[in-house]
């Protein structure tokens, strides 16, 4: 465990301490009222107070908690997604919350006076009261009656079933459990992490938002630590603890499941599409908590932990549930808060790599957790948590939602969202993920991993430093959010990265090599497996860069593949790639041209290309950048080609996902063994699934729902055609957007 990094001493606090005045009813001057709402200073023990004065002027963001997105009408995409101001974006500074923990008693911290402000000064509601409100709600009662009628059962029996669902699902937040977690997590986090850094201004905006409207917290999901950490953080800052949508699998862990429940987790089954009662109870449960504003609702747009550290495409179910109260105007507005949590070293990194290679994920169990104790002796570096600007749903929706569907049906009836709404929900989901990506901190190690993976098997250390620094500049040009630890010199920063990630890479005779221990002995198969393991683990870090780089990189690849300078052709190929990779990377739906323009803009900005009306061509010095960018994505291009080839040649007529993954894995594995490919990443089940999904989207594979899950049918001709386009053997044919 590295000692906490010493920091400068700080001047005394300067935040004005104002008591919160309840303001209700009668009107008055704006100013005092605003103070009443937002004037409560953020509390976080002594260190926070000491830190408060340090940055002086940066403190007046409190009032600016309103919408980030500009309202607008017109074509989809246009109002919601505007080209980011790429490098000029100003971001908040970070504070280390563990520093305070290392200085004062954890016990006292756990027993501190915890009185969070909540929405509209409501008094908190007992978990059981929420449950019975849900059970008695018109929404749930309606479904109960419907089902009773259809199944010829007595409503009481179904009501009981609903009660059981609620008991399985419901959180049972208790201050005692929260304090227990506050204490133990303090101990654990101090063991595991060097620093936990958070942007305090974000916390302040959040505090303001919580008092104004119901709040939905949307963190990225890379680790189990995510939600523990977030609740811990809110407790630390004396904000209302969120209720968190967790997978039902947690309930498999005996004591831990119950503990999480008491800390505010509620549990959802992984799939309940067909179960109307479950859906009704679940949706109403979430909405009740949100509508009444008892607590912020927290869930993961990605649905599950991303095993690759690449943002997963969003799931829409929960998001559409939390948006509904606003659509139906049961609440005035709802704040969506994107939160980016990035880990210098991910706790589950090796587990993930095994999983991607098909070694199954261990079931959540308490004993498993206890066994995992040994990681406590390990160092996992720094966590950065960036609380994004709360986004007003009302602002996002302005001018987009046709209100008719909601006005013409009683609000308690279950109603399938209109296409309009579905499209809107999807747009919002992507927008929030893009915001997460935008504010995701990138550590120097991420850059190292990206460079290293292009220079295997070994790379000269000095060259690595040089390339990493070069990549740092490029990343910043592209809007990446790099936190360089304490202004360390490049060499030291990279060395410290190597130390932290000694399981991935090491320094041997002035060269950096992948740490694939045990490759020397063992059969060919085992060598391939071990090597793949090392590469996938390393790729987990490079992956964090990809969504920042994807637009210019796809332009770069398109330039190389088409060997044409004609803008139109390059765009067609870009657009093709964007479609193919639509599940691999995060693109805002339907704005291919805008993405292309952004890619070109960024490439122009770093002098890699020049463009005019009709043409795009690389500059003399741009070749380096273009080839680096395209090499960064080569594993995906080659991997997809392998997978497509498997589907066009080897796959059976019809298959399930369970058959597909081992099939394609064996196929790639054999190629690797024979040395016919070097694309180890094609072994990743994540990539395999995404590639299959892409073909479904492109219409080359038919996906059908059967009783035992989904079945896939390959249209081999179509897959071949896509492969040909991929290899640029035949031009991509697509109607070109009018104003290219």
């Amino acid at each position, binding site marked *: 465990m590295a000692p906490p990094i010493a920091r400068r001493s700080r001047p005394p606090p300067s935040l004005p301490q104002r008591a919160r005045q309840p303001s209700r*009813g009668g*009107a*008055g*001057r704006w100013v005092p009222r605003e103070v009443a709402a937002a004037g409560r200073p953020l509390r976080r023990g002594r260190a926070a107070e000491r830190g408060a004065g340090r940055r002086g002027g940066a403190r007046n963001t409190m009032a600016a908690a309103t919408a980030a997105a500009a309202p607008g009408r017109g074509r989809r995409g246009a109002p919601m997604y505007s080209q980011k101001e790429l490098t000029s974006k100003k971001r908040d500074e970070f504070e280390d919350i563990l520093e305070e923990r290392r200085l004062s008693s954890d016990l006292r911290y756990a027993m501190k006076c915890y009185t969070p402000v909540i929405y509209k000064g409501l008094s908190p509601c007992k978990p059981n009261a929420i449950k019975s409100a849900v059970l008695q709600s018109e929404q749930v009662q309606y479904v109960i009656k419907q089902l009773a009628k259809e199944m010829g059962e007595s409503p009481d029996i179904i009501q009981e079933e609903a009660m059981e669902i609620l008991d399985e699902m419901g959180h049972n937040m208790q201050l005692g459990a929260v304090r227990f977690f506050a204490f133990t997590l303090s101990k654990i986090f101090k063991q595991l992490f060097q620093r936990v850094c958070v942007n305090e201004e974000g916390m302040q905006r959040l505090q303001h938002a919580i008092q104004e409207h119901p709040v939905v917290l949307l963190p990225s999901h890379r680790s189990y630590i995510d939600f523990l950490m977030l609740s811990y953080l809110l407790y630390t800052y004396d904000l209302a603890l969120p209720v968190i949508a967790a997978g039902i699998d947690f309930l498999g862990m005996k004591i831990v499941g119950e503990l999480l429940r008491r800390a505010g987790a509620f549990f959802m089954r992984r799939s309940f599409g067909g179960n109307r009662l479950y859906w009704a109870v679940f949706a109403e449960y979430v909405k009740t908590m949100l509508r009444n504003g008892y607590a912020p609702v927290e869930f993961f747009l990605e649905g599950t932990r991303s095993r690759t550290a690449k943002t997963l495409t969003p799931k829409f179910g929960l998001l559409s549930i939390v948006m509904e109260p606003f659509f139906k*105007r049961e609440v005035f507005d709802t704040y969506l808060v994107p939160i980016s949590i990035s880990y210098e070293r991910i706790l589950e990194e090796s587990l993930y790599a095994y999983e991607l290679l098909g070694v199954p994920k261990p079931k959540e169990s308490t004993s498993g957790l206890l066994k995992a104790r040994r990681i406590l002796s390990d160092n996992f570096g720094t966590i950065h948590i960036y609380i994004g600007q709360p986004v007003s749903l009302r602002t996002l929706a302005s001018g987009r939602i046709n*209100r*008719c569907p909601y*006005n013409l049906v009683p609000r308690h009836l279950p109603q399938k969202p209109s296409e309009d709404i579905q499209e809107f929900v999807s747009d919002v989901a992507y927008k929030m993920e893009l915001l997460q990506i935008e504010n995701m901190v990138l550590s120097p190690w991420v850059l190292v991993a990206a460079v290293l993976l292009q220079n295997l098997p070994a790379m000269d250390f000095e060259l690595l430093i040089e390339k990493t620094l070069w990549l740092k500049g490029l990343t910043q040009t592209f809007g990446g959010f790099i936190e360089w630890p304490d202004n360390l010199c490049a060499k030291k920063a990279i060395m410290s990265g190597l130390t932290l990630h000694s399981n991935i890479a090491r320094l041997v005779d002035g060269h950096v090599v992948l740490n694939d221990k045990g490759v020397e002995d063992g059969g060919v198969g085992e060598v391939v497996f071990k090597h793949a393991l090392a590469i996938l683990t390393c790729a987990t870090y490079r992956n964090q860069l990809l969504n920042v780089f994807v637009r210019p990189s796809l332009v770069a690849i398109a330039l190389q593949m088409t060997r044409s300078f004609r803008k139109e052709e390059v765009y067609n190929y870009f657009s093709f790639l964007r479609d193919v990779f639509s599940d691999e990377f995060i693109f805002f739906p339907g704005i291919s041209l805008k993405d292309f323009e952004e890619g070109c803009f960024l490439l122009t900005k770093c002098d890699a290309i020049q463009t005019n009306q009709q043409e795009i061509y690389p500059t003399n010095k741009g070749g380096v950048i273009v080839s680096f960018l395209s090499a960064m994505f080569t594993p995906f291009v080659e991997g997809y080609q392998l997978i497509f080839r498997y589907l066009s040649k080897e796959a059976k007529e019809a298959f399930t996902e369970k058959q597909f993954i081992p099939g394609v894995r064996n196929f790639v594995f054999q190629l690797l063994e024979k040395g016919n490919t070097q694309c180890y990443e094609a072994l990743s089940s994540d990539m395999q699934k995404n590639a299959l999904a892409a073909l479904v989207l492109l219409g080359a594979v038919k996906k059908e729902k059967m009783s035992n899950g989904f079945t896939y049918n390959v249209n081999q001709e179509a897959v071949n055609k896509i492969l040909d386009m991929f290899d640029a053997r035949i031009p991509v044919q697509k109607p070109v957007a009018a104003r290219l």
Partner: protein
Amino acid sequence: MITPVIMGLQSHLYVFLPLRQELLKWNGWGYNDSKFIFNKKGQAEFTGKRYRLGGMVLPTFKEWMEKTFGASLDHKTTSRATLNVNDVPPSIVKEEFLQDLRAAKISYSQDAEDRVFRAHGHCLHEIFILREGMFKRVPDIVVWPVCHEDVVKIVELACKHNLCIIPFGGGTSVSSALECPEEEKRTIVSLDTSQMNRILWIDEKNLTACVEAGIVGQDLENQLAESGFCTGHEPDSMEFSSLGGWVATRASGMKKTIYGNIEDMVIHIKMVTPRGIVEKNCQVPRMSTGPDIHHFIMGSEGTLGVVTEVTIKIRPVPEYQKYGSVVFPNFERGVACLREVAKQRCAPASIRLVDNAQFQFGKYVDLLRQISLSKGFNLLLFKGFDPNILCVATLLFEGDREKVLQHEKQVYDIATKFGGLAAGEDNGQRGYMLTFVIAYLRDLGLDYYVIGESFETSVPWDRVLDLCRNVKERIVRECKEKGVQFAPLSTCRVTQTYDAGACVYFYFAFNYRGISDPIHVYEQIERAAREEILANGGSLSHHHGVGKLRKRWMKESISDVGLGMLRSVKEYVDPNNIFGNKNLL
């Protein structure tokens, strides 16, 4: 001010027109002699003897103005004292038409004041223009038909000379319906129905009366009362608005629970259109002869023709009236109570629920004095009523004495179930009186940089609370965004109950000091509020109508096809757009 018009010399008619505009303000609401002022001591006073509040001093009213709006007596704006005749657009009328008018013996005037008086309703922007500016377009001529036949002649002449007619009744429109379309190049004729104000006959056997459409609400009630009858139609504007206007806008009265809205009261309508006269062949309670043509007329807002005679249901004047009031711990409970009353179909002649902000206002203008000063207040405290949250319902019962008392008990029993506490007759009565006086308040506000307006909607029961909360909140937020310096007054009341929903009335006012274009800001906020209403499942209008103010939402409100249906009626009835006030469609 012009004297009663003496018609041209060629005319042998010397008609003294008893012009209401003599009695009424030219640049504000209501009677000249009735208004709020601040006396030398800085205390508010209501002048005149027409209202019960007249002559009363309201010592705390100033405080309310200051507290609510941040207004100050030191910051005053003044309206111009009289109309500047030179600013008024000139009257352009062809001599041939004037000759024809004279031949037809129809009184008219081209006087500037007469024309400006009929160029507007009572929307805020209209009053603001009167005080500080001038309309771009006003009628070129005002005509005063005295009977149905006169109207027929005028419409014929308008067709002959291709003129534009804008019917004018009481002039109380709040939908920009009376505004002259700026781009109208034809001569605009304001057809003032005020001289058609007779009750033609009363049929006691069928309890109907045939009345000329120009009669004003209070005259109608007063004259019917002489025979022991009433219509029971009492819109807040009944002192000034006309029967024809009610029909043309689908009006609603405060006592609609007993007497119905205008569409329930009307038995027969006679309307003069460019195509001819439209009417039915009999005066029956109901008929099945295709879509009811009355429903093309009611709400047509002067776009199809002029309503000249209406047969309307009458009732014997009720034996007994009793006011009442109930205090509820909060607005939610109050709405729940009203909903239950509606469910049991036992709503009194009138039942209204005002929110806390209006309750506070009532306190300051001395309404609900008993609650605040007498032991009643202590009782409220004792019962745990928070004066900053509670709300008040006012009630009016009508009918046989015995039935009223019975009815009263039923309603109070329901109220008790919802935590309501009876708060006395006097408070109820003051509440209703305030309705008539509150309209005068805006003129006082205008003198002190405070502008405001009311608007209404109808909404299903289950959305009443959400709609009230969201619309009020939206107003507050919009004000803030638009740079309004003080939090606005944003308040509502539920004024009518129906089986399936309620009518909700909003008042909204703010201090506009520091804003360069207050009317524009005001209009943006009002529009946002209407958007909010529609998004919350409320209607475009419950009884104010669409006029030109709310036209933009008509398509959304009644669908493309619906709009087309209305358009095709207009096209058939008035192909040359003689009735070209551009309302509604």
